[in-house]
């Protein structure tokens, strides 16, 4: 845990320097002021001053005087589908999200699927997910999650959804999809793991075998640098990734290991928004000139990490484990005519945000001290993933 703290200190020192903030064209609406007024009562948060705390987040992404056309887009991710005969709950929730996205009025211009469509990379799971997503008739773009990839190293996923990183411009915004999952270090060859064993370790969030698998990679960093080189430094960029592009909690790969290099590429740009999956929870952070928004899963909510929750995050309500529609959902995002992005978490059962500490997914853990598992640290494992 000390290493985590060291990394976090470095991240703060490197990226939170004087004047290193997202573009000043950011405007605080009445709504974000209300969020601030709730948060300033909590110890340790007031020092963050005026920075917005999302519920629905309003922020200006265009330059003043250059309004972009209004449009909507939607995010769905982390469905973690098993075959139907194993689990129908996850199917039900994925279907519900898809139906609601399709019913959006005005219609979304596109849907971004943020990865982890499958649970164990099984072709049956990926085909099931693909069939469910066919109900969305608008444009769809996809990035992979680790659960989609490590059974066959992305073969089935790529056959279904194409290239794992891409870019397109839409109404004045450059959108980039990054693949943060496929460049994990090889932990399987030396131990002669079967594809199923490899996938089993990758699918265990708190496992210790797959290691720091989340990363952008040198080749993709070069591609990102090249992709952005022609883009005006003040114009908006939205980067979709499965993992957050900063360091939140490395033991669960709530990060990319090469966040320093990513931030170096993004440094010249003043309007960068990273929208990511994997963390299955309401999450918001600002680092350097980039703001980062974590999306909900449709499958289940992860608990907040034992440490490192960004202070700008206003934590979600503790989910009721007896209600599988609680604590999960998807996002509707809108570019308004006033050049603002509005992010709306669509959580199906309860209010998104906790008002009292006793209901908060963060404040609930004040007396908790947790430790990594051990049963997968021995080789050969007895029992595990046979």
């Amino acid at each position, binding site marked *: 845990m000390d290493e985590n703290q060291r990394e976090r200190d470095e991240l703060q020192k490197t990226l939170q320097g004087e004047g290193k903030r997202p573009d000043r064209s950011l405007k605080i609406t009445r709504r974000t002021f209300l969020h601030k007024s709730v948060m300033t009562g909590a110890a340790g948060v007031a020092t963050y001053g005026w920075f917005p705390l999302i519920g629905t987040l309003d922020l200006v992404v265009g330059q003043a005087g250059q309004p972009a056309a209004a449009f909507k887009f939607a995010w769905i991710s982390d469905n973690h589908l*098993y075959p139907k005969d*194993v*689990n129908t*709950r996850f199917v039900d929730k994925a279907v519900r999200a898809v139906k609601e996205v399709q019913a959006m009025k005005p219609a979304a211009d596109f849907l971004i699927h943020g990865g982890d469509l499958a*649970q164990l990379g099984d072709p049956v799971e990926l085909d099931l997910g693909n069939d469910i997503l066919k109900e969305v008739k608008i444009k769809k773009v996809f990035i992979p999650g680790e659960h989609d990839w490590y059974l066959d190293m992305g073969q089935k996923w790529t056959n279904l959804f194409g290239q794992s990183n891409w870019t397109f411009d839409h109404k004045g915004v450059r959108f980039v999809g990054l693949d943060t999952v496929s460049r994990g270090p090889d932990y399987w060859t030396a131990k002669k793991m079967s594809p199923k064993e490899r996938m089993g370790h990758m699918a*265990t*969030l*708190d*496992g210790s075998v797959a290691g720091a698998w989340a990363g952008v990679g040198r080749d993709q960093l070069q591609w990102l640098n090249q992709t952005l080189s022609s883009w005006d430094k003040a114009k908006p960029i939205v980067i979709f990734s499965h993992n957050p592009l900063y360091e939140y909690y490395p*033991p*669960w790969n709530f990060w990319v290991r090469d966040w320093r290099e990513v931030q170096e590429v993004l440094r010249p740009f003043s309007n960068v928004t990273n929208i990511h999956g994997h963390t299955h929870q309401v999450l918001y952070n600002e680092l350097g000139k980039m703001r980062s928004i974590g999306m909900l899963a449709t499958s*289940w*909510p*992860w*608990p907040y990490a*034992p440490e490192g929750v960004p202070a700008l995050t206003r934590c979600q309500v503790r989910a*009721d*484990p*007896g209600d*599988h529609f609680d604590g999960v959902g998807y996002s509707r995002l809108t570019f308004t005519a006033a050049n603002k992005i509005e992010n709306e978490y669509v959580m199906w059962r309860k209010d998104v945000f906790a008002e009292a500490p*006793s209901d908060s997914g963060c404040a*609930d*853990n004040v*007396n*908790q*001290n*947790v*430790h*990594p*598992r*051990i*049963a*997968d640290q021995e080789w050969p494992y007895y*029992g*595990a*993933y*046979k």
Partner: protein
Amino acid sequence: MKMIRYGLIVAGVILGSLLIVTSARAHKDKHTPQQLKAFEEVFMEQVRVGDLLFHGDDATAKKLNVELSRTGMACAMCHPFGSDNHPHEFPKFQEQIGQFATLRDMINWCIEKPNEGVKIDPDSPAMKALEAYIYWSNRGSKLDPGRH
């Protein structure tokens, strides 16, 4: 009289000595490093078994004749590193169960409801192993029974 008094004193000293010796024998011997290691191994073996059950290991579940989930979900999928288990807060009124509950009650509720598995004997080896892992992974947490 003097002789009687001395006799009583001597008898008292002998009796006292006997009590001390007997009492010392009633206590366990000093622990050897080998014993302490063996105690730890017994505990950690249960932690390992509990860890495997908690992470959905089929082979371990079969060995202990339990079916903790029928949905593909494992305990660790909502509780990585044993987080949000809050063993230090039990016993307490547990909202989902609607009654005063122990950690074992809650483990069984999770097996039966979210995981749709078959609840286990509260005194079974599987329950003890799960309990061992949950407590071990939460060691150092502040004891706070009854907290919601």
